[in-house]
């Protein structure tokens, strides 16, 4: 009986980990505002939002592939690149690439960052793609940019 409950508990933990396998710490001035589309999402009072999606690496591809796929998709939707892709690294040591864009929303320029990480698979651990999105009105986003960077850097699988 006890063993059974232990097994169930472990199973629940494993399921929760696989379903919610990411940590994104809200910085000062940000609050957590999860929803069904993001695994984690935080937002500031003046509209700067940072959210992360975690997907299985399917079709399995390299980080370079997913970075290009994200860039192609955003450009196709009219997002204007704002600088060259930048290599980035989280506090936990995950290496990724940050893509920056500018998009007009309601006649106002908005910043949009997409930071892509690919964690390779391992024993009983599938490869995953982490996409951290950050965006907001350019005026407020630029002020909150350091907090946004620290939020992204806080990502932990």
């Amino acid at each position, binding site marked *: 009986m006890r063993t059974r409950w232990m097994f169930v508990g472990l199973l629940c933990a494993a399921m929760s980990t696989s379903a919610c396998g990411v940590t994104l710490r809200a910085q000062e001035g940000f609050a957590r*505002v999860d*929803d*069904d*589309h*993001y695994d984690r*999402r935080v*937002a500031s009072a003046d*509209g700067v*939002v940072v*959210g992360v*999606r975690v*997907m299985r690496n*399917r*079709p399995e591809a390299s980080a370079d592939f997913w970075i290009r*796929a*994200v860039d*192609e*998709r*955003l*450009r*196709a*939707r009219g*997002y204007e690149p704002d600088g060259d892709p930048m290599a980035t690294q989280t506090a936990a040591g995950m290496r990724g690439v940050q893509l920056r864009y500018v*998009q007009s*929303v309601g006649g106002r320029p*908005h910043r*949009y960052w*997409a930071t892509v990480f690919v964690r390779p698979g391992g024993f009983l651990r599938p490869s995953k793609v982490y*996409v951290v*999105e*950050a*965006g*907001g009105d350019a005026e407020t986003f630029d002020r909150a940019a350091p907090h946004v960077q620290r939020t992204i850097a806080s990502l932990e699988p």
Partner: protein
Amino acid sequence: MNTRQIVPRLVVAVGLSAALSACASGSHYARAMAPPGPMRLEQAAGSAVAEETAPAPAPAAPPGQPGIAAGPATNTGASTPSASTTPSGETAPAAAPMLIYTAEFALRVERERFGDVLDRVLANARERGGYLVSRNDTSIQVRVPSARFHESVTAVEGSGEVLRRNVAASDVSEEFHDAEVRLQNLRAVRQRLEEFLRRAGSMAEALQVERELERVTAEIDRLQGRMRFLSARVAFSLISVALEPRPTVIAAPRTQEVVPPRRVLNLPVRWLHELGLDRLLNLSGED
């Protein structure tokens, strides 16, 4: 002879002269004149000029330019005499028509060649014994001996693209012949008036005759001038050339080719399509 006798005679004489001048084609004088051939026409005009005035070059050619061509005045290049009967009954060659030839050309050449083409037209005319009448930046008029009119026209046509061509021949034979006959008649009238003047018995008579003599002399001068003019025009044909620029072909500007955007491959990955500010900033949870 007194005034009463002179004046009526004078009136009759003048009236007869006027009638004879108006009926020149049927007059005795017209029939008596041997129909001149091509050479004779010029000689007749020249004699009409030389008789009354000091010999003057006809036409008034510019210095260094040849005067009336020594060749035939006919412009057709070959005179075809028609028969007419002299008083002796023999058939004499009829007068060749007196034709004034004019040619007008519009040529299309490159604008930078205008000067060269105009120079060439003038050079061609001068080579054939012609001379310059007028010239400006885009047109030129030259006169060439009528005998060389056709070859001059051919030379002009080879100078550029012919846009318009107008060659005309004006027959002034009848006018010239009429003027000749009237001139003869007026000379006869003048001769009689001079005789009347010598016989005038009084100053009044003399003045009357003098006035008439003056009128007849003026008419003679006018006719001679007209004949000189016609002879000159017949002897030298006018060629007018106007140049038009060849339109410059401007290469059509290369319009910037609009390259359609590159086709984006729609990967069958749902989350790729969900990226963006729309969903990220939708904090209310509404889709």
